[in-house]
């Protein structure tokens, strides 16, 4: 590592991106390039004529072969890694993802329930559940693919086809056709690069183009032999399937180390190549993301299949590259366990303190043990990566849903408590009884929905063709081609549900109140009741009794799901996240006032970190609460957002303390953690709605104060100071 630090400089300057002029220019072009439709790609697909009676696999493969090799190769000045879909110069993207602009996704998802299931459709219409798709996110087998190459896969597929009949034979032939098409695409890049090389007056650039031509002639047809070849092979495959990069620092490590050992590569050159890849990941996969980082997800570090530390110098180079290019995509996760080196955590915190939004953290222990509990072999579980926003997926082996749909946990508990009220529940047992009934109903429902969606799943060929495990089974990813099948249903609003449950439990057992009366007052907007509800302890404040109810609720929901399976899926599993579709807002809009002192229409919690504005005892108390939940019961993925003051990470000592928070979170059994260093905009919100921001500490120099407790003029000053600091 010393050698790397001497050779490679990190570039904190706001103006420059990347470690070299080349990267700086490529990144500048990438961030200024307008979002346009991939019109050529789209019109090639539209031009594919359908052939009557053609097998669905063959049709998918033929479409692929009529599109990918026919796309105009894009090689931009200065690029070392090539491959992009041509953008339309004139037509703006017809679909732009701008979070917050969603009116409401609930009816859209409800329509995915077939009309012959009216009861389930009604549940989806009232925002209790929302089916999404049988597989949303995945990580294809990039690791295997770049080592084997398309030629060997195609040959193997043709050999398998000889031994099979009907569907399986069609599958194998289609698989071979698609890989041959991918080779043809790369060869077109090789030709264009060679032509450009012959024309380039700059001998240095000409040499680079000759090298690009050589590499594209070799990969992805053949196994990659060098680090540069491995990156190029990966990128061609990513152009097909995208999504999660998988464990890129793990599967590229052998190429990196071999090149370094042989003297073919320096760490500085490797960094430049990785920075080129980061620009590709930011800019050249999708035409329709505007201002979110998710959907493209990179996972670094964590445990290897044998339990040892997966991180290496290459992990550090990736972090440095991400830090240098400072681009919005992809989302980056640093997997952590007790063997994660401290310097990785410190680098990660430094990046966040510089204003980057990456990386976030994932604790391995609960995810791995949760996956093992539902039958995933330990080695495969330890290989998990993150896809989409934060969904746990298996790189190259599994179809885990990620997510299959959403469950509105807040509504589930509200429904159950209202039932308990009608039944005159006087004890907490009565509440649990009602909750169990509703959990069972929901679990049955999502089991049915999962089965229906699997039966009606569209063929996902772009994923299938990059999953060699599907070739062994001659079946696509949606119908048994993968090694493992689980399904994730993502809960939304668990903290709200816990607060409701505690309120009901407390009011009937301590105050001796009638739950029916309480709901009557709640629904009539009684302000005294609201004050009382507001004053009760809330999840996120290290309150054992509240947190224990949360842990119990989670165990019951996850247990009910995990007891169920479908013909395809070995278990239903639970997650807790609201997704890029902001389901916490969508669901909240559809709900009346609730016992957690939430007003009608207000959003549910967007993470496990307490209901909005309710966690007021600081980050350590919040972490204790979050970690009283058994995160192995949310093995589909979670979100926990920790708000810290920017000045918390202003000094090396402060950053060590923040890294210590992350370490403690992981040690206490937490899964996902993302850090937000508070900015001026948040403080402005806090000024407007002080009640929602109780407990927000501002730290200036050696003193600290609760922001909502200080006067407006001082608040203004702190805000302007923050703005001054972030301006540059």
């Amino acid at each position, binding site marked *: 590592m010393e050698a790397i630090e001497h050779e490679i400089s990190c570039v904190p300057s706001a103006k420059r991106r990347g470690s070299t002029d080349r990267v700086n220019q490529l990144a500048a072009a990438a961030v200024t390039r307008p979002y346009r439709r991939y019109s050529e790609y789209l019109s090639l697909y539209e031009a594919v004529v359908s052939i009557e009676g053609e097998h669905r696999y063959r049709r998918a493969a033929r479409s692929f072969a009529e599109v990918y090799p026919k796309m105009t190769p894009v090689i931009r000045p200065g690029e070392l890694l090539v491959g992009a879909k041509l953008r339309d110069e004139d037509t703006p993207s017809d679909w732009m993802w701008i979070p917050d602009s969603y009116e409401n996704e609930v009816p859209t998802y409800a329509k995915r329930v077939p009309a012959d299931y009216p009861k389930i459709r009604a549940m989806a219409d009232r925002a209790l559940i929302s089916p999404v798709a049988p597989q949303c996110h995945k990580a294809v087998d990039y690791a295997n693919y770049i080592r084997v190459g398309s030629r060997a896969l195609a040959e193997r597929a043709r050999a398998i086809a000889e031994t099979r009949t009907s569907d399986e034979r069609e599958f194998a032939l289609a698989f071979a056709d698609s890989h041959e098409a991918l080779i043809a695409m790369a060869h077109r890049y090789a030709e264009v690069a060679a032509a450009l090389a012959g024309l380039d007056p700059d001998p240095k650039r000409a040499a680079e183009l000759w090298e690009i031509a050589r590499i594209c002639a070799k990969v992805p047809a053949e196994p990659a032999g060098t680090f540069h070849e491995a990156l190029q092979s990966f990128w061609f495959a990513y152009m097909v399937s995208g999504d999660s990069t998988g464990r890129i620092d793990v599967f590229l490590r052998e190429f990196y180390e071999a090149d370094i050992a042989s003297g073919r590569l320096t760490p500085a050159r490797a960094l430049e190549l990785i920075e080129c890849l980061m620009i590709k990941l930011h800019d050249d996969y999708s035409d329709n993301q505007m201002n979110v980082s998710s959907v493209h997800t990179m996972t670094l570090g964590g445990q290897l299949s044998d339990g040892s530390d997966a991180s290496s110098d290459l992990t550090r180079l990736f972090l440095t590259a991400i830090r240098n290019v400072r681009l919005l995509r992809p989302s980056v996760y640093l997997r952590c366990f007790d063997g994660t080196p401290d310097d990785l955590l410190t680098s990660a915190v430094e990046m966040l303190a510089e204003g980057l939004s990456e990386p976030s953290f994932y604790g391995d222990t609960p995810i791995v043990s949760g996956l093992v509990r539902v039958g995933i072999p330990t080695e495969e579980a330890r290989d998990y990566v993150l896809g989409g926003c934060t969904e746990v997926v298996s790189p190259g082996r599994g179809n885990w849903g990620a997510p299959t749909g959403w469950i509105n946990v807040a509504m589930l508990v509200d429904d159950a408590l209202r039932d308990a009220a009608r039944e005159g529940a006087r004890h907490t047992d009565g509440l649990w009884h009602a909750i169990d009934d509703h959990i069972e109903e929901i679990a049955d429902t999502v089991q049915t929905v999962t089965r229906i969606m699997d039966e009606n799943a569209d063929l996902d060929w772009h994923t299938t063709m990059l999953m060699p495990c599907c070739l062994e089974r001659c079946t696509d990813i949606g119908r048994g081609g993968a090694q493992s099948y689980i399904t994730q249903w993502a809960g939304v609003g668990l903290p709200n549900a816990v607060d409701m449950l505690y309120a009901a439990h407390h009011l009937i057992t301590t105050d001796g109140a009638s739950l029916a009366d309480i709901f009557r007052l709640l629904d009539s907007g009684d*302000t005294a009741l609201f*004050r009382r509800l*507001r004053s009760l302890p809330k999840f996120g404040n*290290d309150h054992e009794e509240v947190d224990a109810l949360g842990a119990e609720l989670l165990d019951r929901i996850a247990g009910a799901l995990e007891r169920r399976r479908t013909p395809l899926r070995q278990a239903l599993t639970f997650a807790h996240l609201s997704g890029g579709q902001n389901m916490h807002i969508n669901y909240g809009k559809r709900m009346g006032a609730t016992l957690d002192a939430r007003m009608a229409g207000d959003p549910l919690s967007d993470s496990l970190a307490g209901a909005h504005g309710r966690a007021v*005892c*600081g*980050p*350590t*108390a919040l*972490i*204790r609460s979050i970690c009283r939940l058994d995160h192995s019961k949310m093995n589909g993925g979670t979100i926990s957002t920790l708000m810290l003051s920017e000045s*918390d990470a202003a000094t090396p*000592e*402060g950053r*060590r*303390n923040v890294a*210590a*928070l992350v*370490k*403690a979170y992981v*040690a*206490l059994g937490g899964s996902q953690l993302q850090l937000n260093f508070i900015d001026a905009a948040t403080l402005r919100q806090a000024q407007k709605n*002080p*009640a929602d921001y*109780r407990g927000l*500490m*501002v*730290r*200036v*120099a*050696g*003193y*600290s*104060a609760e922001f*909502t*407790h*200080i*006067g*407006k003029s*001082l*608040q203004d000053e702190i805000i302007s100071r923050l703005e001054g600091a972030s301006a540059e």
Partner: protein
Amino acid sequence: MKSRGCVFNVQRYSINDGPGIRTTVFLKGCPLHCQWCHNPEGLEPQPQLRHAQSLCTRCGLCAKVCPQGVHEVTPEMHIIDFHRCMGCKRCVDVCPAGSLDIAGQFVSVEDILSTVRRDIPFFSTSGGGMTLSGGEPLSQLAFSQALLTQARNEGVHTAVETSALAPWEHLRSLLPIVDLFMIDLKHTDDARHRALTGVSNKLILSNIRNMVATGHSLLLRIPWVPARNAEPDFLNGLEAFLTGFTRPPHIEFMPYHRLGQNKWTGLGVTAEMADDIPDASSEDIAPWVSRLLKAGISVRNG
């Protein structure tokens, strides 16, 4: 273990009160009256009413329940006659905005430790622990001793923030149960010290000399307050004082910030708080730092 103390705050995730992530216990009562005090609720030894004007909705419920006529509420104003308050907490209990509370309550060692213990996982990963602050921890010596002893017994790193205005014997009694002392020094000139804090600094300086002589872990912290102690005489005096030691203690400057200001109005003690003090920054202190560094003193600029 029967010892009870008056504590006005137990602050978890304190990151400016010693090494690592700490839980800071703020004890009430202080023999000094620094003009810039940022924890004025720590001055009086008894519990007292506190009001956060920014949260107040002027609903008037407090005025209705108060038996003492402490609160006068109009749609525009909430005026509080703090001196009439008997601390019955009725107003605190009815306030829907949570804008009222009583600063300070009598608690046991176990009460405090039950909170401190919660953050042991964070102390472990950060090298943190428990800090006693205030107010002045030495003003509740027996309680502080009991608290520190118990924390130490449970393996928690202990630190004390003190003005050192107490008999040396009191400070010395803490040596075996405190890992780190942080002593605030406000001025080296006695007359100026009296003017700024209301008390002489003779005992403080003598205690610092004694503490340095013991070789115990010590950080000398200097609140750097514009228009108060940020003056050449103090810098000269500080340099002379520190260079007088064979092994001078480490120094940390704490630039003044007005965050504490609203607390004074909330406690009804505006008259004492000078509002003409501007904020200080690390840059302001740079000349002091470089001067002391040249003199061979180890300095941190907070």
